[in-house]
């Protein structure tokens, strides 16, 4: 367990030292989202309808943006060998990495989301549902993303490969997140999509570390 916390702390420290990386993710999220009113016009009704979906899509793309920094630097400087050569089970290594990724991208995105929602004229009563949708979907983005990063590790053009591999997996997350938000905004009960999303969180938490660990073993062989 000490090893798990040590790895998590190191990754957070590296991420924050390289403050630009964490900032780029949030800036991308805000700036790309803010482009929508220019493209679709400033009509408040239209924007309000789009806001939730735009925020969730931008969160998925922003999470993707930082995935190639998850394992690649450790492979490049030889740290990955040393990380693999510890008594810490690889599944926990994968979990620590995904947790660090969520803390450095998912969490800042949730903090920035109200600002983006405001720019996109999401009604005030939509703010909490949006945060809930993001809180339920961003952990899956990090867990599935970690798996994709491990699978494409060391491949040529791994960035492109990673995009094609991971984005399709993000689709159910987008559908359910947006459905929950939409339902709660239109006055109907938003709970069922969120419950399914929460179920996916648990499944991703339980399954992706095993798959990621297997991919890391291969990548390093």
């Amino acid at each position, binding site marked *: 367990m000490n*090893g798990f916390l*040590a790895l998590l702390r*190191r990754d957070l*420290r*590296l991420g924050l030292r390289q403050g630009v990386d964490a900032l780029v993710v949030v800036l991308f999220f805000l700036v790309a989202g803010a482009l929508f009113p220019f493209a679709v016009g400033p009509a408040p009704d239209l924007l309000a309808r789009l806001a939730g979906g735009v925020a969730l899509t931008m969160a998925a793309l922003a999470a993707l943006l930082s995935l190639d920094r998850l394992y690649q630097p450790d492979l490049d*400087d*030889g740290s990955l060998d040393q990380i693999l*050569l*510890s*008594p810490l089970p690889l599944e926990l290594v994968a979990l620590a990495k995904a947790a660090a990724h969520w803390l450095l991208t998912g969490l800042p995105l949730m903090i920035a989301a109200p600002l983006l929602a405001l720019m996109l004229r999401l009604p005030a009563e939509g703010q909490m549902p949006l945060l809930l949708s993001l809180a339920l979907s961003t952990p899956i983005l990090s867990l599935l993303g970690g798996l994709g990063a491990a699978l494409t590790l060391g491949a040529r053009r791994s960035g492109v490969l990673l995009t094609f591999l991971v984005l399709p997996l993000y689709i159910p997350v987008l559908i359910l997140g947006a459905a929950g938000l939409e339902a709660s905004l239109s006055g109907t009960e938003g709970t069922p999509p969120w419950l399914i999303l929460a179920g996916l969180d648990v499944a991703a938490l339980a399954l992706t570390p095993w798959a990621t660990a297997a991919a890391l073993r291969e990548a390093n062989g």
Partner: protein
Amino acid sequence: MALFEGEDLACRRGEALVLEGVSFALDPGDALWLEGPNGSGKSSLLRLMAGLLRPESGVLRWDGAAIAVDREAHRARLRHLGHLDAVKAQLSVTENLSFWAEYWGIAGDVVAPALARLGIGHLAGSPGRQLSAGQRRRLGLARLALGSAALWLLDEPAAALDTDGTALLAALISDCRARGGIVVYSSHETLPVERPHRLRLAPFTS
């Protein structure tokens, strides 16, 4: 019976076999010098020994039991030093080494003595990016001085080291052997290591 032995090992990288029919047997306190031209599979053999690669055929045993049976126990008993020093540019020298100590569950008070031992105590606060190649290698070697692993696997450990550094390395190796550890290293030059066993790997062309 030898403590650490390999029997008829073969290793495949992609299509090509890089090792075939390699055997060795080492007792506590032994050192093994891997010799051979570039591409003869020295690094691959060290990675096999570490469990980072799986052998195509053959078996590695520790104390009579195949290492594949309990890989976590094997990982816990060894230190591997590769071509790269696993130094993070953004972290200070102390932070770099403290992380590995913490990660491997070794008390943090061994970090400063380990740095001093390798003659880089004065660099403790410097960021990794400012280190020269030789200093980075010393920081890599300082990981060996943490704890007391039973098996050291060193891939060209003297690369980038100056004369003093090589002497420090030799002293580390001799300490490890004195407490019953096994050291396997590859090197193109003769390192000042006492009476190592030698294993010459032939260049492989198949």
